[in-house]
């Protein structure tokens, strides 16, 4: 039917060219062509390779417990940020205690992160989410280093242990990770979630109502007095001793922490979570977190959300720390994977003590 003449052929070629160029630009935008981009899925793949795939569970901090409570602002924070959370008021909080790693049935008696994740809801509905660790510093400064660290310490299937040569090579290139490991070994460890300080890890920007920006980090400091655990006895503790302890404490009394905002001075690094700021920085107590209830994950609301540190109310904004978008992306990727799986809802579902945490 079509009479294919030379001009027509050229015009058809031109149409093909337009579509090809558009497709190529799309492929470039999607990162399907080199150079290589670090994707959220790559981070989660590295976590799965390190700790195995446990369907239905978070790919990091797999073992956890939902908590509920409230945050009472004392009004001091309003001088630093216009976020509604800092107006003198009470805001509802849901959250999660967890231990580091991707193995949901790992024993609590090990040198791993202990974490507090929170979602605070302002009166206007805006939310402030965060995932805090019990260390003021992080072992790596960049997402690529995180992936490299996971890969270097992934257990060899033959020995069940990481290849020491790979670990050494990694550590030689990353003195900051070496420093973190030393810090973790040398610093006293608390006996409980209840007497632990939790840190924001990354720096953030607070924006006050005059538009001024304050570079900050924050921590939650416990009212429960610190008590050190004998690290030599860690391995002999019951598998769920940390979670059982906090459940038992919450059946008696609420647990409280003070939100302490630390203000950077010019020159303090805001893009490097492996370094601490000098100890003499200004610290402001902006309010009290009271946790009054624990629920295992199949009963609580903490399971199907992420504690994405970039879910921030107006008045709080990310710093230039490259870990922040990576945390946000990896948490979303982990959520999409675990939500599509049918796994056990909670590592603590069969724990006798945790039954007391049911409503």
């Amino acid at each position, binding site marked *: 039917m079509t009479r294919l003449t030379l001009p027509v052929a050229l015009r058809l070629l031109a149409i093909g060219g337009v579509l090809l160029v558009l*497709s190529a630009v799309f492929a470039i*935008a999607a990162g399907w062509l080199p150079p290589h981009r*670090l994707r959220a899925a790559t981070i989660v793949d590295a976590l799965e390779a390190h700790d195995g795939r446990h369907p239905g569970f978070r790919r990091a901090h797999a073992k956890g417990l939902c908590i509920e409570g409230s945050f009472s602002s004392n009004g001091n924070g309003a001088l630093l940020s216009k976020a509604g959370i800092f107006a003198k008021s009470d805001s509802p909080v849901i959250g999660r205690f967890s231990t580091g790693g991707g193995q949901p049935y790992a024993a609590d008696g090990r040198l791993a992160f202990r974490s507090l994740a929170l979602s605070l809801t302002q009166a206007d509905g805006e939310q402030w989410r965060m995932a805090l660790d019990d260390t003021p510093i992080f072992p790596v400064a960049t997402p690529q280093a995180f992936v490299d660290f996971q890969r270097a310490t992934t257990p060899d299937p033959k020995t069940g242990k990481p290849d020491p040569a790979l670990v050494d090579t990694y550590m030689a290139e990353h003195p900051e990770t070496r420093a973190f490991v030393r810090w973790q070994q040398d610093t006293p460890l608390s006996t409980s979630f209840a007497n632990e300080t939790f840190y924001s890890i990354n720096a953030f920007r607070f924006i006050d109502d005059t538009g001024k920006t304050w570079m900050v980090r924050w921590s939650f400091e416990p009212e429960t007095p610190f008590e050190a655990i004998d690290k030599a006895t860690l391995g002999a503790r019951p598998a769920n001793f940390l979670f059982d302890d906090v459940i038992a404490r919450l059946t008696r009394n609420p647990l409280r922490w003070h939100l302490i905002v630390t203000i950077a001075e010019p020159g303090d690094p805001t893009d490097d979570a492996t370094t601490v700021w000098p100890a003499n920085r200004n610290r402001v107590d902006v309010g009290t977190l009271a946790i009054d209830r624990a629920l295992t994950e199949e009963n609580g609301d903490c399971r199907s*959300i992420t504690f994405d540190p970039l879910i921030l109310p107006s008045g709080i904004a990310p710093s230039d720390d490259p870990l922040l978008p990576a945390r946000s992306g990896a948490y979303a990727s982990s959520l999409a994977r675990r*939500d599509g799986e049918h796994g056990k809802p909670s590592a603590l579902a069969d724990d006798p003590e945790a039954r007391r945490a049911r409503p």
Partner: protein
Amino acid sequence: MTSPATRFPLAFRLLHWLMAICILAMLFIGVGMVSTVSEMRTWLIDLHKPLGILILCLAAIRLCIRLAYPAPALPADLPIPQRMAAHLSHLLLYVLMFALPIIGWAMLSAGGYPVQLFGTFVLPPIAPIDGPLFTFLRQAHTVLAMTLFAIILAHLGAALFHAWVRRDGVWQAMTLGHGQRRLPTSSTGYAP
């Protein structure tokens, strides 16, 4: 001047090209933001959400105009398979223009993500917080976005075929200039 039956109304043509830019930008932003964990990710996501809601609003206005003013008839000599392909692709384009922003909004709702557009302006959730629903909607959002890009390629290819090969006035029905709709003649080089 052109008669009303041969071209779309001016407002509709303006909307078509404005939305073409928005939707293409949106597709590129979408695949770009999920491809990286650099700071571009945060920046692109903050652009993706309000742009998606803008497209949803524009699609609603566009549908109203489309329903009020019938589209110019396709050339009488257009073969039936091409005619059907045109109608089907246009229907799919309309469906996806609505479906993608709504699914994106519902996906964020199901994942417990606040749909923050700008400043303190937050849209209400349109789905309950539900894990499997989040995963399903996220996959649907991706698959439908890729489908939309494929249909846009076909749509553009067909439009250029009308403009450059058939030269039958279909392209001029949507252009912004004072393009007089040409009548199909046997001198087009594409003989039926």
